[in-house]
């Protein structure tokens, strides 16, 4: 069986050993616990169409500082639980009264969930060379449960997006996506990401997004140079964007390498 849209309580299987995320077992029968897409390969799981991010140790995420206390930054991580970044969890030593200079309310960070205890106290760290405050680019928000679709099978979707838009794209597990690049590339990347968000449940996603990007690029060039042939248009675009490429974000490449 393939994939299908199911509602909470929908019967999925008689084999409880197959039950995975998004399901529950009652009287040896497997039911969906969420409204989402059920898949039946390698166990039965249901990916919800919506929902909050629930932090797990080891998750790389994007947070926004919402409060600065005596020794902690309180970080919004799109979860029912705030993240805590302790003053000792940043790469350099600062005094308590300098905390707002280092990171102030409203600033974003690329951070790692280092621990989540039984009381759902979520500890974050920047003590890793991959992590840092985010000072440039754009951040958009998507449904956290859909993050794997943005990355694609062994990173195929994200690799395609990065290649086509010449942007660096970091997808946080909490559904915040950080994009850096030239304005046009970022616009295209964001349009594509929002299309993925809307259409995760429709089969053939990668092909459709690839087609969408080609069309978007084609349109823009056609306005500028209407007499050119299709092939040269593509080349023209590639060149255009190549020129716009920024030098920033080498770190992101490393990171994404890790994700794959």
């Amino acid at each position, binding site marked *: 069986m393939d994939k299908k849209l199911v509602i909470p*309580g929908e019967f999925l299987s008689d084999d409880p050993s197959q039950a995975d995320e998004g399901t529950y077992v009652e009287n040896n029968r497997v039911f969906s616990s969420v409204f989402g897409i059920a898949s039946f390969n390698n166990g039965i799981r249901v990916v919800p*169409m*919506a929902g909050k991010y629930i932090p797990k140790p080891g998750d790389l995420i994007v947070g926004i500082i919402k409060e600065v206390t005596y020794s902690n930054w309180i970080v919004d991580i799109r979860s029912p639980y705030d993240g805590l970044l302790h003053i000792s969890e940043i790469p350099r030593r600062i005094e308590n009264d300098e905390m707002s200079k280092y990171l102030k309310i409203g600033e974003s960070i690329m951070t790692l969930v280092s621990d989540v205890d039984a009381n759902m106290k979520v500890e974050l760290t920047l003590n890793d060379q991959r992590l840092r405050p985010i000072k440039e680019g754009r951040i958009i928000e998507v449904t956290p449960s859909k993050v794997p679709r943005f990355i694609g099978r062994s990173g195929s979707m994200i690799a395609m997006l990065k290649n086509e838009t010449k942007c660096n794209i970091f997808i946080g597990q909490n559904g915040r996506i950080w994009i850096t690049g030239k304005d046009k590339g970022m616009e295209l990347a964001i349009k594509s990401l929002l299309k993925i968000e809307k259409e995760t449940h429709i089969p053939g996603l990668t092909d459709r997004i690839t087609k969408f990007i080609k069309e978007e690029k084609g349109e823009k060039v056609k306005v500028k140079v209407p007499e050119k042939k299709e092939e040269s248009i593509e080349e023209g675009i590639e060149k255009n964007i190549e020129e716009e490429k920024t030098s920033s974000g080498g770190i992101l490449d490393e990171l994404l390498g890790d994700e794959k």
Partner: protein
Amino acid sequence: MSKPEKLIENGIRLDGRKPDELRPIKIEVGVLNRADGSCYFEFGGNKVIAAVYGPREVHPRHQQKSNSAVVRYRYNMASFSVEDRKRPGPDRRSIEVSKVSREALEPVIFQEYFPRSAIDIYVEVLQADAGTRTAGINAASIALADAGIPMKCLVSACAVGKIDGTLVLDLNKDEDNYGQADLPVAMTPDGNITLIQMDGNLTKDEFKEGLEMAKTGCMAIHEMQKAALMEKYSSQIEGENNE
């Protein structure tokens, strides 16, 4: 309107329905942008809108539960939803309705997945026409699913009443005002009853028969709830193919 001479004649009610017939139902899922999940539900002359926020932080903090989410339910009637303008804000009736409605939904929500958080359900009655609490529960149940909240199943609700000695499904306003009993029920698709209230007068046998009628009504509503949720995404799939 003063009391009609007869509320049911030759098995047909004043609004033309048969005894076991529901009023028309219209459902829209995801109607609000800010809320995590939402649903607009028309049930006869009732127009209600439900929004779900959460799981999210609990304020005030002392309401936190260390091993599960707290579920909060606020049923509120718009001032203009009834014949005589209602003063804004909660009254004793809406506080009671909020409590029993919350208890109708709590047993299906996997609250233990989200310790120390809150799941907030807000139901606003924009137009009232008998059966607002059941309309609210139907809407809230869909809004919870739309918000991605893990739950055992949806909850469906409707009322059974007695008019001129006949048991009928889903009372309208006149039947509610001048009938002899009103029995709102909420249940899961496998028949577990999560809300039951009654006022009026029923014999033991009438009650048992009425409960069976309510069950049939809830099953029908469950199918419509499911169809509405499916519709939210299937219409997009069609739209895509038409391009």
